[in-house]
């Protein structure tokens, strides 16, 4: 493990990784301090500038209430960043733990898990998430519950596969001979070696989480207005799209750039950490 890290540290960073991290840095900056970048209050109405096209005063134009689109797009970055993180961290943690468990112990738990995976992949992911949100009710918290309830399976499957590979390694046999406890072997020895592909997958999954979160926001099932979320902003502006396309175009571009940021970072990390996908 240490040898791998040393080899990785000695290498130049891949270009996609740098590009991806730069995009994500902008998103983080908007989240940490939206006031520094937003020229206006994102909720302030300006009846003298309704539906005004992009101009020097309003770089991204205004919506039907005269709210500044640039400020609203910046304000929404925090919510979408939260979606990217929460919609991967919760299923990622739960799935990794379960994957560690079934991979290490095998047996009945593993057999049940196998059937469960077969079952979950027959449901269209989005349809299953939407069905659960339909039962729980719309909103961000319920969206996280739904995504966790479905998404853990993919992390567990990945982690299980890695554990199976690591389990047969000589260092695990050595740790056993030394009389280390099972939890110590799992968490101190197996986990650090098995975690790389899961981390890379999680970063790529964050791009998908942004797309999912904004899609649910657009459908009215995710973040609820007046929460500024890019999908919600687009849903707000869609009726004006033919006459005032900037209301939709700029938040949409923000989604694309954020998605690119995460997927480039994921691709770059995969190269850097030598994870084959």
């Amino acid at each position, binding site marked *: 493990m240490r040898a791998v890290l040393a080899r990785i540290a000695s290498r130049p960073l891949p270009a996609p990784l740098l590009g991806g991290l730069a995009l994500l840095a902008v998103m983080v900056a908007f989240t940490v301090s939206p006031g520094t970048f937003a020229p206006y209050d994102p909720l302030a109405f300006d009846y003298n500038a309704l539906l005004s096209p992009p101009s020097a005063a309003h770089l991204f134009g205004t919506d039907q209430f005269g709210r500044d689109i640039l400020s609203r797009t910046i304000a929404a970055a925090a919510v979408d960043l939260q979606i990217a993180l929460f919609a991967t961290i919760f299923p990622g943690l739960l799935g990794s733990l379960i994957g560690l468990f079934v991979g290490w112990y095998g047996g009945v738990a593993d057999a049940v898990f196998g*059937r469960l995976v*077969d*079952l979950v*992949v*027959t*449901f*269209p*992911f*989005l*349809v*299953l998430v*939407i*069905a*659960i*949100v*339909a*039962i*729980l*009710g719309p909103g961000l918290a319920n969206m996280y519950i739904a995504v966790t309830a479905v998404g853990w399976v993919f992390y567990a499957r990945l982690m299980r596969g890695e554990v199976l590979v690591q389990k047969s390694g000589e260092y695990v046999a050595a740790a056993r001979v030394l009389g280390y406890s099972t939890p110590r072997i799992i968490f101190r020895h197996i986990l650090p070696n098995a975690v790389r592909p899961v981390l890379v997958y999680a970063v790529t999954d964050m*791009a998908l989480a942004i*797309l999912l979160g*904004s*899609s649910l926001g*657009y*459908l*009215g*099932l995710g973040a609820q207005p007046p929460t500024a979320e890019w*999908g919600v902003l*687009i849903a707000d502006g*869609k009726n004006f*799209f*033919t006459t005032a*396309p900037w209301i*939709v*175009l700029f938040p*949409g571009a923000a*989604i*694309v*750039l*954020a*998605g*690119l940021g995460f*997927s*480039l970072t994921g691709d770059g990390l995969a190269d850097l950490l030598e994870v084959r996908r």
Partner: protein
Amino acid sequence: MSRGAWLVSRLLQMVPTFLLIGLAVFVLARLLPGNAVMALLGDRGSDEAVARLTRQLGLDQSIGMQLLAFLESVLRGQFGTSLAFRIPVTRLIAERLPVTLMLTGMAIVIALALALPLAFVAALKVNRWPDLLIRGVFQVGLSSPIFYVGLVLLTVFAAWLRIFPVGGYGDTFAEHIYHLFLPAVTLAFSLSAIVMRNLRASILSVIRAEYVDFARAKGLRSRVVLLRHVLRNALIATVTLVGLHIGSLLGGAVITETVFAVPGVGRLMVDSIFARDYPVIQALTLVLAVLVSLAFLVTDLVQMWLDPRVGR
């Protein structure tokens, strides 16, 4: 194992899959906060009405009996009556499912029509500008949410240029194709990117593989080599990839149909959520899962037909 035996065992696998799908949807439906009776009657129901409906829905039975009753009615194709439309759910879905299937089918055709030639161009010009351009555009495509792509296409090609209708489905088959073209392009985008990426990689690996050198050494012209050796292998991988992504296509159809006002089951699903039309949501979840498992089956069959090693 002979091919016949493989086929039979593959078909038999469908039985537990369908049973598990039924069980999962049943469990999902029981998770409703409160219960279905309250969802149906709201707060207005008198005690008498609640008792009657509870008996009607069989909710006074044990959970095991409820499950059996549910599976039995599913097998008979009965999902109850839609609360919003007041017609049998089965009829509602039967009317709308063909629309979604046609949309998905068109999306697959468009995705392949885009991905196959572009993958060849990208692979043959690897790391030169056509390759970089194609990969760049598809990378952006993969990061674009379906509803955004849909809105942009809708505005440019339907509202501004007026080449396509802004939505709907039309009456004749030709009109269906015309109405579904923009939605299908929208839906095709991400599948196309995934297929292109995969195909490009497999073409590159085949080009560098030894048997292509061998075929060239035999004196076959390079274009013949490419077509005969590359295409066959690449097709098998592509079929698998498309089969695996049927689920995400159907999920994408939910969003596409909402953006373009296409009267398919995806839009029905979203409408049903806001109408709290639980029988429809339950039936649709089940039907879509069954569709995906059927798609997996078809994928396996096509693979068996294309690849002589499968099932031997």
